[in-house]
């Protein structure tokens, strides 16, 4: 998820990549290509007499955000992801929003840890009309566990602005979490949680925090595909109130080995 700034302070648009990370990384010699499509059905609206919402940001209401995420596996414990954020809204056309880069490392399997653990860091730029903070940095610990039909993931992310409205606010706390249940081999469903509590120096009131709950479905149709759908409700004032999200990802194995062959690990 891109570096959302404390919404209560900056009212940043962080609904470009809405995803709770799992601890696994993309395999070496493999590229994951994902398209994140998020439509804000009920978001921020223009101020009277202006095309902008508060803080001279583009409104999110009825905005379609398309994000391309390209992740390259480096080895069996690291990867690098790259994001291209775009936004389309009636009257504004389709606009480039910004880019982020996200290196990630994980605890190798050979360490035999009982939980999946990885650490992601993300840095990048968003245009001023889409975020009151343009250059941001995030560090995201990731812990997950699959047990029977249940899957748990927690991402207690920390964020920092380097240029923009909240640059003096210090580090913000933006935890994400996910719980899902395997209904069958192909369909899993659960709840995803995204929040931005504000600066670690002092959390905002609940009213001013960003809080989103996404009932979501994952379709496990193939090891090479990743499909996720969800509808998010934001009950607090600082949150877009209704978002529909979808993720479609395709894994490309560049080793050209056929499954089951003498060169394949499958």
């Amino acid at each position, binding site marked *: 998820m891109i570096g959302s700034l404390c919404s209560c302070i900056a009212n940043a648009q962080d609904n470009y990549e809405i995803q709770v990370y799992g601890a696994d990384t993309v395999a070496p010699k493999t590229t994951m290509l994902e398209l994140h499509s998020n439509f804000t059905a009920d978001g921020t609206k223009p101020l009277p007499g202006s095309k902008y919402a508060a803080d001279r940001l583009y409104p999110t209401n009825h905005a379609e955000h398309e994000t391309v995420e390209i992740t390259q596996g480096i080895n069996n414990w690291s990867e690098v992801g790259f994001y291209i954020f775009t936004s389309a809204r009636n009257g504004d056309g389709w606009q480039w929003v910004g880019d982020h880069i996200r290196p990630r490392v994980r605890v190798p*399997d050979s360490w035999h840890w009982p*939980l*999946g653990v990885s650490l992601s860091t993300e840095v990048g730029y968003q245009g001023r009309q889409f975020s009151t903070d343009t250059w941001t940095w995030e560090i995201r610990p990731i812990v997950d566990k699959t047990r029977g039909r249940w*899957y748990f993931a927690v991402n207690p992310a920390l964020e920092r602005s380097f240029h923009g409205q909240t640059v003096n606010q210090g580090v913000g706390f933006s935890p994400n979490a996910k719980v899902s249940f*395997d209904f069958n081999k192909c369909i899993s469903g659960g709840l995803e949680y995204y929040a931005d509590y504000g600066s670690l120096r002092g959390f905002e009131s609940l009213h001013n925090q960003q809080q989103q709950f996404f009932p979501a479905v994952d379709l496990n149709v193939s090891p090479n595909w990743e499909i996720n759908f969800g509808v998010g409700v934001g009950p607090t004032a600082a949150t877009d109130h209704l978002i529909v999200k979808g993720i479609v990802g395709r894994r490309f194995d560049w080793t050209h080995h056929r499954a*089951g062959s003498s060169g394949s*690990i499958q």
Partner: protein
Amino acid sequence: MNRREFIAKSAAAAALGAPFSAKHNLWAQASADVHLEIAPLKLEIAPGKHVETIACNGQVPGPLIRWPEGNPITIDVVNRTNIPEIVHWHGLWIPSDQDGAMEEGSPMIAPGTQQRYQFTPQPSGLRWYHTHTTAGHDLKRGLYTGQFGCFYIEPKDERGAYDQEIFLTLHDWNAYMGAATDASMDASYDYSTINDRMLGHGAPIQVKQNQRVVFRIVNASATVTHWLGLAGHEMTVVAMDGNPVPIPASITALRVAPAERADLVVKMTNPGVWILGETRDDIRKAGMGIVIEYAGCQGEPKWIDPPEVLWSYRPFAHPESVTVQPDHQVPLLFESKFRGHGDFDYWTINGKSYPETDTVML
């Protein structure tokens, strides 16, 4: 195993296979032909790299049992571990109470006790022995350990169309399950070995130009299907699972599943120092390989990726189809029930899971 080790083990095996005599009629009183002692072992698979395991007679693989076809054998097995154990004689046609499979009536060997097995090994060919205990969720037990060895039953008409015979066992060590994702349902391993050493850390197999070498290979891994290639050479499959194949055929890479065996003949026509090893880089780098060294050749062992192969048994089969009507047909419907991406599937045969499965009556 290198040539010196092979000669040493063959000598021991020859002793095991001493001429059959009347004393075999006094099994109950006489000493056994073979003694196996199951005990914990700290095995060094590379300098300074050890695995804690259980093995037979303090070695991995256990001693080669080489025995003439048709001759009775007596084997005493002592269990020096603190858990019940059992030894299964894999691929042999022997009574179920001697077969070493507890599911079929062979008794477990209690800790600190001894069990005597008596049978006439048949059919001839490459068989093997291994523990038959169930590991369950304990990846330090059962076939995850080093409790296995080769059992070669010499055919009465052994032609010996080879100059050197090498027994190789494949094994993967320190199994563990990952923390998350579907991949965690496959055991992963820290190390792999051929016989008891990781690639580059054992004595090389010494060969001479134009020698015909037979490699008798057992995949003793608990879960991993292995692919083997011999850089710079082709291999001819002459037997699978110990049984001669109808049509020996040349291959560039061998696929061998857990418990599967293959006898390969290689004519040594490419002098150098080569690697016989896993075709997949990650497993070979984890140790699954052994160096083949021609007489008079030195240098770094070379690995060459063989052409990618999709395995088929068809090249070794009679080209014409054979239709044989069975005496009985026993329908067995294997099904699995999904229990979550974080658990193993629940498997059933005809709707029942072992040990509740129905006994097949013939």
